[in-house]
């Protein structure tokens, strides 16, 4: 692996740039992705490199944008839509769910929608309830959509390139607090297959299963826990649909204890699915303790910084939950 360190935002940009160089049918559209460089600076200088036709700034009309991407994809283009905040997918749900997700199946299989929809997700910037949601479970529940939540710069480049290759609509949810984080990222165009969970740390006492930004938070927790003699596995779910239970079940078999960690509100969130898969067996037979979910509170994300932190899992909470799980409380 390369020693080059770049940020998550740079990794996204690099993936898009390389895909656009390799394939003239790939293009990007979204609000303020041109000269502004994207609300989170992700598209950056792509406009200088590829021009306004292929880095296509749009009016504020999410439904229209996604619909245009669907139409372009149907006739052979490979659009990458940026929705400025994942909360605004609410505006475009018809095109995402009733059109993009269903067209290939419903129309008989001849047509397909090779579209990528990227959206910054999650809380942590003080932008309050309409700009901070984690809506992955909506998309993961819809047959016909693939959903990934890349957890690091390395992950996002590889998963995004797979998403662009994929002949189906893929939703890529990028946590906005990750954009400025750095990590080693190879320069070449490597792919991380969609639909494969990733065991990122192996331990023997319990396994933490996490998505998105919670992966690094769990890794930090694992680090701190190891200092007090608790040995933690961490599985990055990575691909929410399709879901690969393999590494999760392996680790449960080994450790007997599982903690499911997500930022989204707990009630009917994505981790419920993982709990359900475990409890349908055979992994359930390996459990030494009930499953523990560590999730966001069932409240809208508040503005006040201390409240915003209080409603989603933070490092201390993850650590103490792990300790509780081991103590069997």
């Amino acid at each position, binding site marked *: 692996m390369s020693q080059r360190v770049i940020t998550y935002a740079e990794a996204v940009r690099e993936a898009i740039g390389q895909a656009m160089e390799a394939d003239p049918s790939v*293009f990007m559209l979204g609000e303020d992705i041109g000269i502004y460089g994207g609300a989170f600076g992700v598209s950056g200088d792509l406009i200088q490199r590829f021009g306004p*036709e*292929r880095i296509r700034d*749009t*009016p504020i*009309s999410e*439904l*229209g*944008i*996604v*619909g*245009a*991407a*669907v*139409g*372009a*994809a*149907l*006739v*052979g*283009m490979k*659009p990458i839509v940026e929705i400025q905040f994942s909360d605004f997918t609410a505006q475009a749900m*018809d*095109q995402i769910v*009733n*059109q993009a997700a269903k*067209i*290939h*199946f*419903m*129309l*008989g*299989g*001849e*047509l*397909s929608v090779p579209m990528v929809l990227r959206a910054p997700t999650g809380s942590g910037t003080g932008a309050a309830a309409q700009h901070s949601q984690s809506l992955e479970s909506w998309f993961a529940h819809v*047959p*016909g959509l*693939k959903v990934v939540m890349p957890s690091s710069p390395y992950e996002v480049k590889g998963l995004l390139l797979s998403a662009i*290759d*994929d*002949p*189906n609509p893929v939703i890529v949810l990028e946590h906005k607090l990750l954009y400025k984080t750095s990590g080693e990222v190879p320069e070449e165009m490597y792919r991380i297959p969609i639909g494969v969970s990733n065991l990122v740390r192996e331990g023997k006492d319990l396994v933490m299963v996490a998505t998105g930004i919670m992966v690094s938070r769990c890794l930090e927790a694992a680090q701190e826990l190891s200092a007090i003699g608790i040995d933690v596995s961490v599985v990055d779910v990575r691909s929410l649909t399709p879901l690969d239970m393999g590494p999760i079940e392996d680790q449960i078999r080994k450790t007997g204890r599982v903690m499911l960690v997500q930022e989204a509100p707990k009630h009917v969130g994505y981790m419920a699915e993982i709990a359900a898969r475990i409890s349908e067996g055979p992994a359930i037979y390996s459990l030494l303790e009930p499953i523990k979910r560590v999730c966001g509170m069932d409240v809208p994300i508040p503005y006040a910084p201390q409240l915003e932190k209080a409603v989603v899992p933070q490092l201390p909470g993850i650590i103490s939950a792990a300790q509780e799980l081991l103590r069997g409380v």
Partner: protein
Amino acid sequence: MATITPLLGNDAGAISESKEAALAALESLHSIRSFEEAVDGLFARGMMHGTMHLSIGQEAVATGVCAALKESDFITSTHRGHSHCIAKGADLTRMMAELLAKQTGYCRGRGGSMHIADAKTGNLGANGIVAGGIPIATGAALAQKMKGLDNVVVSFFGDGATNEGAFHEALNLAAVWQLPVIFVCENNKYGMSNSTEFSMNIGHIAERGAAYGIPAVTVDGNDIDAVYLAAKEAVDRARQGGGPTLIEAETYRHKGHSKSDKNLYRTKEEIEDWKLRDPIGKFEHLCMEKNLLTKEEVDQVNAKVRETIREAIRSASEAPDSSPDELISSVFRVA
């Protein structure tokens, strides 16, 4: 296979000015009507399920518009989409098979009437969502422009659809990007039970073009020549890079909105009045009056079409039912 040869790529002035064009147009008009009358019958006899939206009375819009298109052009269609599908050249057997939930149907029985698509003839799909196809058409037009092709895209939709946000956003995008897309509103005066008088505060849907700075025109949708000429102008402009057009074609559906409609929201008189203005009768009359076609020739088209439809029903009926085996494997395309 039971196909008709619809009128595509007409270039010889009004349809009623050329015998060849008139015959092809007539074949399309009658195919739509006969197909839907057959469907209506199958439905009534419980041989079809689901729901059904018939465009009987509106056939001149699809036929007149498609006459201005070439094969490589695209369309998006609606819940009331048989006419668009047929006018663009779809195989009637595969359409019928779809409605009969057969494996040989356009959607392998997975979509039914509201989801027929035909990649081969450029039909990107009927749509169960009102206005759902409008942004999609815009995107397909964007692709043509980006690829440097001179294809155009037509989006068909109803009057009711123009009240949806999707209409607004799509027309604005098309205008801003000057895309080769023609927005064809089949104004049949009702969105289900809601008349345009109740659903909008304007006299003509064409007035909505002003909000986007795109040319817009209202035509008599039951006059196939008028429809064709307006479409031709718009298509030519779009093909030459002149951007989108909104065409409002005023027409009427003779039947209810769908099978469950009791028609309480309109009068018998209104329906009868519009039947007098039936686009097919009107066009036949014109052709004969102009001595372009004889009564015999008209009857021949009619007879040929009826036989084609019978054949479509026959072979569709014999096809195997839609297969449950491939459900899971059909959700995603395998690279």
